[in-house]
């Protein structure tokens, strides 16, 4: 949606080279960076032989595939499987899995519901909750920052804003399932599906009209549908999209910021002196390790991208986490450096018409909790080895053991 023109290539291109690695194995998910490097350096577009799809991992191509909906559509699904084909087993997101102009009207109606003006009014409540979270961990000293900071905060303030009731343990299981489902139907996905089976009925109910809590923006989505501003029957799927998109990603970003800051005491000291810097620390954290790692589009018609010939109807895997470490775009990309100019340049929130609609909410959550910590904690240090949850398309910490030293 950027007003600046983007290049469109035409004519004939070369065949994308084959990359014979499965990115959706526990081995690669545990440390995706060697795969990312391979993907970026082999060619602007590669073919992932195992899945018969294309993949992109450089900044420029990722930006183009995410935003050029005339050549790369979302309507055939933003997951690995083509939603137009029989046997589609994943329910469509009414907002994400469609293209302009259909998308535009819905997006505008939702933007009114969670406009920056609305979101700014939530800040005081977020700050109160952040104080409680910080009071508690200051007493504890030895914490798991994923559970005691990121989840404790996000899983309280976000469901409260949306106006849904989501028990913490259910949120984690649902998140695993949802972000696995964007990728292949592999063992990792099947295991997460078995885990949510006992709560699936509760989950289906959680985004229905009767479950909306008075005053939340979920209720406003149902009202907008009633007023004809949103398509008939879209509200349940839209509220579900906000549940899917809004929690695990933000938890991941806050976890990454704390993980990197614990490893860089000098940068923590800077935040402690000037908590306004937490904004750039968060942006750099989600550039450095991107929560939403992989999304997909479908080639609309035969086209050329980065000099490579692409065939209509094939899926393209978009590796945002790889693009955010592309050395064509970033100097010393593997280093975490809060003084970088990252905001508005990195692709962790996507690009184009579907660029994250919740990004100002995510930023405010991160800013409020991280600045509350930065003010009251002099030092944070790792007290164990952090572990990751292995999920097909989401990168996030499972456990981040920290020792905190209050002022």
């Amino acid at each position: 949606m950027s007003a600046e023109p983007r290049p469109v290539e035409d004519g004939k291109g070369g065949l994308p080279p084959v990359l014979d690695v499965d990115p959706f194995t526990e081995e690669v998910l545990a440390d995706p960076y060697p795969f990312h490097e391979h993907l970026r350096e082999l060619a602007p577009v590669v073919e992932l032989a195992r899945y018969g799809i294309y993949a992109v991992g450089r900044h420029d191509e990722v930006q183009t595939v995410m935003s050029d909906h005339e050549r790369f559509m979302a309507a055939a699904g933003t997951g690995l499987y083509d939603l137009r084909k029989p046997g589609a087993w994943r329910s469509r997101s009414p907002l994400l899995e469609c293209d302009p102009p259909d998308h535009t009207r819905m997006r505008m109606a939702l933007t009114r519901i969670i406009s920056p003006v609305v979101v700014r009014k939530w800040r005081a409540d977020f700050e109160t909750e952040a104080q409680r979270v910080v009071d508690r961990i200051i007493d504890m000293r030895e914490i798991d920052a994923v559970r005691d900071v990121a989840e404790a905060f996000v899983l309280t303030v976000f469901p409260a804003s949306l106006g849904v009731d989501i028990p913490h343990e259910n949120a984690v299981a649902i998140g695993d399932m949802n972000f696995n489902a964007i990728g292949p139907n592999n063992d990792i996905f099947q295991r997460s599906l078995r885990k949510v089976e006992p709560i699936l009925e509760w989950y289906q109910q959680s985004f229905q009209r009767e479950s909306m809590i008075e005053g939340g923006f979920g209720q406003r989505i149902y009202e907008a549908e009633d007023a004809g501003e949103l398509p008939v029957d879209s509200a349940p799927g839209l509220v579900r999209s906000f549940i899917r998109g809004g929690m695990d990603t933000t938890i991941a970003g806050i976890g990454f910021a704390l993980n990197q800051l614990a490893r860089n005491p000098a940068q923590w000291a800077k935040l402690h002196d000037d908590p306004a810097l937490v904004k750039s620390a968060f942006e750099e954290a989600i550039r450095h390790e991107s929560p939403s790692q992989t999304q997909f589009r479908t080639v609309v018609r035969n086209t050329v991208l980065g000099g490579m010939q692409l065939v209509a109807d094939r899926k393209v895997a978009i590796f945002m986490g790889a693009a955010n470490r592309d050395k064509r775009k970033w100097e010393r990309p593997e280093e975490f450096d809060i003084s970088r100019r990252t905001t508005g340049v990195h692709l962790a929130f996507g690009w184009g018409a579907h660029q994250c609609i919740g990004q100002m909410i995510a930023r405010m959550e991160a800013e409020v909790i991280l600045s509350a910590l930065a003010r009251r904690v002099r030092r944070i240090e790792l007290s164990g080895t952090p572990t990751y949850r292995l999920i097909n398309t989401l990168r996030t910490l499972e456990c981040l053991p920290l020792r905190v030293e209050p002022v």
Partner: protein
Amino acid sequence: MPKVTFINPDESRVELDVPVGQSLMRAATAAGIDGIVGDCGGGLTCATCHVLVQEEFLPDTPPVTPNEDQMLDFTAMGRHPTSRLSCQLVMTEALDGLVVRIADPQL
């Protein structure tokens, strides 16, 4: 190269050379002008690159799209008749000499 003058909330002025095809938001953030935030990078999602365009340049600016129109209602300062989001102001030769005032507050 065409020039643009940004007037900061404290009335100080910064003049930048902005290449044709670049947005004012990009030029300002690259030059470290703090009053232009540009959180979403031009995605029309944050409304944090709000400027007031000096009136005589208005006819030479690109038309306001419905998305920009809606976002202008959500700026922190509130909307004025000459309000624009600077991510949508892409430099042209005709805009050489453009003067814009940075909205205050931006966040």
